[in-house]
């Protein structure tokens, strides 16, 4: 029994950190939802795209080389450089801003005032497009992402816990980093949206497009800004997940792990994304540990959703979501 | 509590018969979190009369209608309808008692045509079973035609024949208000609640709307409770007026009584500019 408790504690800690990783993806959703009421399904693909671009830039791959090779019969491979991580990250962030501008110009601008489900569909279309584009640009093979983040067990934590409990906890150093970065990101985003002029404008746009226009807020600027920030958040998520499990197609599927986090935390709340992530992370890991063996395991795919569902029945707007104003 | 509804009846100046108490609100209190939207208000609505509720913005008028139609459940107080105390009820159950209403911010079904919107008013009159509907056979088809005839009468009455098939989303404001009225009428209610039916209309349109309200009251004998900010309309149409202010009742009586009540003038009317 004592063992089980100690194990639970270890799982709890790991659950927290996994939750942070989910939250990183969820954050991007929240930002865009907050600022435009758009449920951006493409967020996961955005993370994939960012990671692909980062690897491509860092390793000097020639974009579209398959296409070029197929059409012109050339054998382009790479530019033959390797850029330092920081520079590559900056350049990628630039690409994400460019992407945000294009998305605004080509998609969002034409869909102002449409129903949410239409916008949601548009982002699914966007997801398809970006997925294809990412493949065409950088190839579909699995890529290794290394920006110098440490990985593997943290020995100090292991030895400390081993001394305390007689069982060394496993904590991944990458997760520790992810937690620190996520905390920073959340603090910065909260401060931004709550206390700055642009943040206020962003929330205003979320409430009422027309009214925001009427006071002179430029929707286009706000949207480009928000999508750029979301693109940057996607880049961070992409770096974390890419370092963890390589950069390839499945990276985009982490979006599915972020959705229950959103539900639980509330679509509009930045702190909600983190808290929701932590609850989901811990919940699914502990459930798998305690209940999983009784019902055959592999419960993690659905547990988060069912947990969020049950939770929502009692609080339909999520933990920190804005109260749904129901008046007639 | 054994309130017996007052049974006295009277006849108005223009010869309409006002009956006994139809709806009796007793000591209603409604709170939202810390906000007390309605504070211990009692009033009644008599059969056949036009009863107005007035008061400044945020006084709790709409909330009161919402209590009547079961959308808000008051923390305290009792609602009596036709001499029976109404227990906690879902809004759709209240609707089945014969209470229909319109809304302050138009609540039409935007994706449906005018005709379908009005037909929704008759949902509770249609009883065909699932199978009959699925196969469009027997009761379902008969019912549809019978109810359609009723609805066409209302369409004629409100003079909206030419927009029958138009999706309501495209209609101008005034017509929407009229369609909402039609939908409420389609339910053949005994009590009709109108929340600012003439907001955003000019005098001419208000005149039209007044005519419809009076005709409904006259021809079908429908009891009407009405919220309005246009004092001209209120004073001209209503038999009795309740005045609310920040959740309290500050006046109740005939239009003339209310018009001359100093508290009402201070809280609501301001200086009269007739």
């Amino acid at each position: 029994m004592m063992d089980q408790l100690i194990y639970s504690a270890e799982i709890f800690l790991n659950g927290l950190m996994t939750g942070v990783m989910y939250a990183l993806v969820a954050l991007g959703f929240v930002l865009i939802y907050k600022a435009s009421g758009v449920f951006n399904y493409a967020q996961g693909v955005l993370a994939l795209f960012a990671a692909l671009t980062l690897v491509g830039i860092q390793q000097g791959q020639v974009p579209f080389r398959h296409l070029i090779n197929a059409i012109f019969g050339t054998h382009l491979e790479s530019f033959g450089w390797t850029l330092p991580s920081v520079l590559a990250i900056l350049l990628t962030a630039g690409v994400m801003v460019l992407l945000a501008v294009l998305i605004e110009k080509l998609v969002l601008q034409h869909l102002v005032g449409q129903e949410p489900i239409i916008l949601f569909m548009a982002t699914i279309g966007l997801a398809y497009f970006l997925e294809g584009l990412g493949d065409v640009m950088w190839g579909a093979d699995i890529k290794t992402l290394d920006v110098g983040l440490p990985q593997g067990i943290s020995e100090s934590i292991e030895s400390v816990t081993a001394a305390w409990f007689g069982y060394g906890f496993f904590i991944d150093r990458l997760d520790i980093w992810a937690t620190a970065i996520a905390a920073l990101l959340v603090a910065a985003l909260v401060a931004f949206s709550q206390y700055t002029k642009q943040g206020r404008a962003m929330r205003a746009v979320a409430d009422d497009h027309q009214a925001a226009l009427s006071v002179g807020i430029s929707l286009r600027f706000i949207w480009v800004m928000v999508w750029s920030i979301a693109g940057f958040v996607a880049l961070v998520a992409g770096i974390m997940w890419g370092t963890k499990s390589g950069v390839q197609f499945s990276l985009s599927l982490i979006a599915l792990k972020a959705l229950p986090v959103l539900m639980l935390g509330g679509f509009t709340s930045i702190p909600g994304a983190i808290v929701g992530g932590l609850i989901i992370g811990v919940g699914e890991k502990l459930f798998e540990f305690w209940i999983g063996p009784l019902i055959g395991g592999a419960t993690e795919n659905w547990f988060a959703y069912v947990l969020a569902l049950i939770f929502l029945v009692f609080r339909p707007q999520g933990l920190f979501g804005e109260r749904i104003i129901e008046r007639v | 509590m054994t309130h017996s509804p007052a049974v006295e009846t009277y006849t108005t100046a223009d010869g309409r018969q006002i009956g006994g108490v139809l709806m009796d609100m007793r000591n209603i209190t409604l709170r939202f979190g810390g906000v007390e939207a309605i504070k211990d208000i009692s009033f009644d609505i008599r059969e056949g009369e036009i009863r107005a509720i007035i008061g400044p913005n945020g006084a709790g008028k709409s909330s009161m209608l919402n209590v009547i139609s079961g959308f808000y459940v008051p923390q305290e107080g009792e609602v009596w309808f036709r001499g029976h105390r109404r227990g906690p009820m879902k809004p759709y159950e209240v609707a089945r008692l014969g209470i229909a209403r319109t809304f302050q911010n138009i609540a039409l079904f935007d994706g449906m045509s005018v005709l379908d919107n009005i037909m929704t008013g008759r949902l509770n009159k249609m009883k065909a079973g699932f199978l009959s509907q699925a196969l469009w056979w027997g009761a379902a088809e008969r019912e549809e035609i019978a109810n359609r005839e009723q609805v066409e009468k209302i369409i004629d009455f409100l003079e909206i024949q030419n927009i029958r098939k138009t999706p309501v989303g495209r209609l101008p404001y005034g017509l929407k208000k009229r369609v909402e009225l039609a939908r409420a009428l389609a339910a053949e209610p005994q009590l009709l609640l109108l929340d600012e039916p003439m907001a955003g209309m000019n005098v001419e349109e208000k005149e039209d709307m007044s005519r419809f309200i009076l005709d409904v009251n006259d021809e079908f004998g429908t009891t009407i409770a009405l919220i309005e900010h246009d004092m001209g309309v209120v004073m001209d149409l209503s038999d009795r007026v309740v005045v609310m202010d920040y959740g309290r009742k500050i006046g109740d009586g005939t239009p003339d009584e209310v018009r001359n009540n100093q508290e009402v003038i201070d809280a609501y009317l301001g200086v009269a500019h007739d």
Partner: protein
Amino acid sequence: MIYREAGDFKTGYRDDGQTFPIRLDRWGYYAALAVAFGIIPFVINDYWANAVFVPFLIYAIAALGLNILTGYAGQVSLGTGGFMAVGAYAVYKLMTAFPEISVVIHILLAGGITAVVGMLFGLPSLRIKGFYLAVATLAAQFFLVWLFNKVPWFYNYSASGQINAPERTVLGWAVTGPATSAAGKYLVCLIFALLLAWVARNLTRGTLGRKWMAIRDMDIAAEIIGVNPLTAKLSAFAVSSFFIGVAGALLFAVYLGAAEVGEAFGINKSFLVLFMIIIGGLGSIFGSFAGAAFMVLLPVLLKNVLVGSFGWPTDLAAHFELMIVGALIVFFLIVEPHGLARLWALAKEKLRLWPFPH
């Protein structure tokens, strides 16, 4: 001015409520039926059946189902894949447990079972709305897939968890199993699709349909004018799930013949069907068919053009296919957010005015 309404007088409310009020539409519909029953079955081959018609018809049924829920009753669902799986596994269990009973009855029963499951997962819709509900329906999607993968009873304890459709006949014709002819598959699906479309049409134009639409457009107002949200929403979930269950049963038994739950009924199915109804048109029966046709045909067409005609490598073609499908979805939403059905209606409206606009 061939296409017009003028002169098409209605003399009663019955006529006014008919499905194709304009004579030319009616003719077009009869002509389509004649081709579907009189010509296609005789010329269809395996490729056309398996790559085009059968999936189109089956997805049209699923799209009808989802359209009832999402398009008419306004409840966005991403659980379609899971519900199709219920239909598939139900029909599999029924087929293997009661081989002597007609497979048509099994398919209908599978729909019924799915309807019950759908209602169960529809219960939260009373509290949860909008995207929260959409995401919540994913719980159904993931849970059901897990269940069918995990509990061996559902796949009759086969080693790998795959299910295989045994051969069954209707009136002596094989309709499931490998020996089924192209025409046989096609006709079964066609008949189901038409019957269900007719039922959907009946339901949506009557009382139940109005309740659904009222809930969709403004649920609070609907409740206040007398719609019971519980029965309205649950009936939408039930009817929708019935359709989707039938589609799942057909997909497994008639089309694929073998299925593995995670692969055949994964979340991509849910999205695919949602695409269909949005591209086709929310709240439109015609739109369900148009959307299904679009999403089934487009990839086949693109592949044939890019690989077949341009001779591109398959992977480039596949990547471009993704990009083109994605871009087209966005394009369609921008041009006409209300889908192909609305485009069609607009085109007809223009035709009606032609040659004298305004």
